[in-house]
């Protein structure tokens, strides 16, 4: 079980809140794709296990024309042992046409992740999205018509301008189209984004935390009512519709990230590619490494384990802590203890967030984190 992530760092427009690596200059698409294919051949021995999931993320991978996508998949085919169960493509509603859907189907792409964000026109304008509300609806209808049963959409909450009523309407649309999977993110204000700038200069007034929390609660309750399982803090799925690729991250599976800014993990170290399209292309051309590596200490791995697993529905498994990190077993037990009850539910073998606990995930995580005393 291993995954491959391919980062397509191009977007038609820059969303005001986004700090992911992308470029709105589309000239170098071909060159980047070419470099990714070179990188594939270089990294062919990185994964020791068969590849079960492939994920095209971005940026906006739906921007790629079919032949480029196809060439990447072909390259993967020839360099990796593929046993793919899931191939996901992130797409923007405005890129979705019946023609494209048919081609993606043909390429074996069996899951679409559509960046909807909201079904309200004024939200999309405010976010500087490249699509409108009608396109959002159509993209879902068309994808389903084209046979993409495995569908997920992104929604954003917790920004000023999103009323409770509008949020409810967004969730009603979700119900209406029986979308099997959702990723729901709270709006984060990142530095070096348009929104970050607006916040700093007072042009944007963030939604008070209490209201953002109320929205999150409303989402959790409504989606639960609709039959979704919140299997990770930001992810909701109908039974058997979980994202395999992302779930693998949370299971500690290995993965290879290709393209500018992509991250990889082989079980003991992480590496990440340079997040600059031109430099990436150049380094690949020169045959030089495009990444930085970080070896993970036991403490790092312990911290990652608790951080990731606490966010999942399965929670932190006591046996795993004991087997993988025996030195921190007592430390963990001691530090999770104050949260048990109200914020963390303890079963015989696991510690899982309660609904209240989900609001303070990061706090609980950092409480059970181990940090070196000498670097304190």
């Amino acid at each position, binding site marked *: 079980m291993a995954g491959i992530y391919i980062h397509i760092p191009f977007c038609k427009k820059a969303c005001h809140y986004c700090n992911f690596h992308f470029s709105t200059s589309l000239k170098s698409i071909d060159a980047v794709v070419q470099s990714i294919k070179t990188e594939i051949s270089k990294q062919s021995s990185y994964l020791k296990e068969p590849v079960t999931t492939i994920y095209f993320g971005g940026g906006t991978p739906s921007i790629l024309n079919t032949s480029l996508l196809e060439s990447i998949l072909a390259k993967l085919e020839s360099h990796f042992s593929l046993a793919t169960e899931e191939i996901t493509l992130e797409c923007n509603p405005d890129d979705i046409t019946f023609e494209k859907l048919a081609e993606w189907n043909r390429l074996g792409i069996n899951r679409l992740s559509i960046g909807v964000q909201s079904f309200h026109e004024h939200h999309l304008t405010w976010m500087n999205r490249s699509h409108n509300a009608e396109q959002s609806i159509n993209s879902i209808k068309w994808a389903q018509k084209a046979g993409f049963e495995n569908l997920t959409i992104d929604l954003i909450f917790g920004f000023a301008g999103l009323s409770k009523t509008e949020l409810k309407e967004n969730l009603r649309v979700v119900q209406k189209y029986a979308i099997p999977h959702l990723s729901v993110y709270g709006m984060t204000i990142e530095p070096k984004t348009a929104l970050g700038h607006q916040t700093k200069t007072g042009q944007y007034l963030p939604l008070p935390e209490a209201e953002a929390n109320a929205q999150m609660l409303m989402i959790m309750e409504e989606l639960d009512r609709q039959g979704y399982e919140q299997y990770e803090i930001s992810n909701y799925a109908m039974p058997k519709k979980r994202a395999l690729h992302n779930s693998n991250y949370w299971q500690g599976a290995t993965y290879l990230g290709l393209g500018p800014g992509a991250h990889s993990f082989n079980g003991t170290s*992480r590496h990440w590619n340079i997040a600059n399209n031109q430099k990436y292309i150049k380094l690949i051309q020169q045959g030089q490494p495009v990444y930085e590596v970080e070896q993970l200490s036991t403490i790092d791995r312990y911290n990652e384990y608790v951080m990731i697993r606490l966010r999942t529905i399965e929670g932190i498994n006591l046996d795993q802590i004991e087997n993988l990190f025996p030195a921190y077993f007592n430390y963990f037990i001691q530090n999770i203890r104050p949260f048990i009850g109200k914020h963390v539910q303890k079963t015989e073998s696991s510690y899982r967030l309660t609904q209240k606990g989900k609001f303070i995930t990061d706090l609980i995580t950092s409480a059970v984190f181990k940090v070196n005393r000498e670097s304190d």
Partner: protein
Amino acid sequence: MHPMKNIRNFCVIAHIDHGKSTLSDRLLEMTSTISAREMQNQALDDMDLERERGITIKSHAIQIKYAHSDGETYTLNLIDTPGHVDFSYEVSRSIAACEGALLLVDASQGIQAQTISNLYLAIEHDLEIIPILNKVDMESAMIEDVSDQIVDLIGCDPEEILQASGKTGQGVQEILDAIVLRIPAPQGDPQAPLQALIFDSMFNPFRGVIAYFRIFNGTINTGDRVRFVNAGKEYEANEIGILKMKEEPCKSLGTGNVGYIITGIKESKEIKVGDTITHAERPCSKSIKGFEDVKPMVFAGIFPIDNEDYEDLRDSLEKLQLNDASLVFEPETSAALGFGFRCGFLGMLHLEIIQERLSREFDQEVITTIPNVSYYAHTTAGENFMIHTPNDLPDVSALNYVEEPYIEAQIITKPEYIGTIMNLCLDKRGVLTKQHYLTQDRVELTFDLPLAEIVFDFYDKLKSISRGYASFDYAPTEYRRSQLVKLDIKLNGESVDALSALVHKDKAYAFGRRICSRLKTLLPRQQFVIAIQAAVGAKIIARETISALRKDVTAKCYGGDISRKRKLLEKQKKGKKKMRQIGSVEVPQKAFLEVLKLE
């Protein structure tokens, strides 16, 4: 053996900073008791801390040989006294060992409360007082005014007042002569059974406890079987001797003299200041009066900042207790602070000293909880017992009433500050019992005050409202019935046991409000709203709210986010070091330390 008529035993009574240590140094230098090379400034204070604060915390004694102009050599035993209110019992025992006292007054500052209370103690013990104006070389010296104060106070002739400067050495010769001429030689019966007063003790890691004593009757020899009367224990005098800069062993010490004894006792608890030493074979008929088992007055929890340091803290406290028997402690568990110790101190300064010594000598940083005094709880079942922590107070339903300790407080200040000091003391539930003008410019106020009221920020407030022109001293008087309630502080509904306090019911609101608003400034915003409440029983009497810090719990956490997120949270965690978890609320260490400080 020194003839009794050539012995003089004396102490120095002075306020902190009035130059006692410097003048003592001069006496030692001039008599070649100590060479200039040996001389560290303020030789008598051998702990760093004492030197830095200018406070002699533990008293010492030193023997000076002085060749007087009459051709005789005299043995002058200088018995040093601690200079702070918290140590008044030790002072009284040092005074009881002397026939005379040097009353040292800073010519630029005049008489202070501490000086007066110790002076009264000395007069009570019939000591011959030699008044000395010190620091007369300073420009700000008010020689006439301060001389008038002294004359008023002890009724001496102005000519009897010596003028000196520890800094220049002026007047030191005159002081030595006055000691010989004015202070009477000790009296006592060398043939009577041994009767010696322990006025101090110290711990030596190699030799055990060394007790300092003054012989009133009889003679003591090395190897004697001795009995400590009040402790009821017998030991062999392994070594006795006199006190020079170092201990000098000798075979025998006679009536009137001052010396030390080593018996192999390992714990200072076994030697009690004020106890009487006598012979096991031929004991004296009664012990020297004035012995008291000193009881701690102020209690506070002391907790290690890191729970892993608990055992180290215990070791450190045990070591401190070896040379400071007045420190008591027992294990205490706090839900908020984990494992620590409930410690008893003689007073607030003693508490601060222990805290600082833990830090300096043992590198132990600690959290100290709200200090409290000890109370008598009387239950409806007719039981009564002493409690040292608010958390031991019986439930309201089982509690009949509580008694709290009172003190008599003396404050000496300038007349212009009477008003503000009165207000402070009235606010502290005090009653003015006496107002006495020492001079036109110096007034002595006596208050009846609950001890508990001076445990919180009293000194600091007094100092600031009088711009430093007020000195303070106190003596415990009695326990009285009082309307006390237990005030709990809650963070998001969780009681913080370390912040519980017993307060007078009339002050509960003000105190609760104050703690809540202090905590509001001390607690960092967290990822959720924090309610800070003060409660008496089930009733909430004050409340503050800290709004939540916006945090993005729902941010993505996929393959490319893991490293960044982990590092972000690690950084946050490191920023949170020195935090304590109360339920879900992180409380920084400094909140515990600063919650009671002045705004």
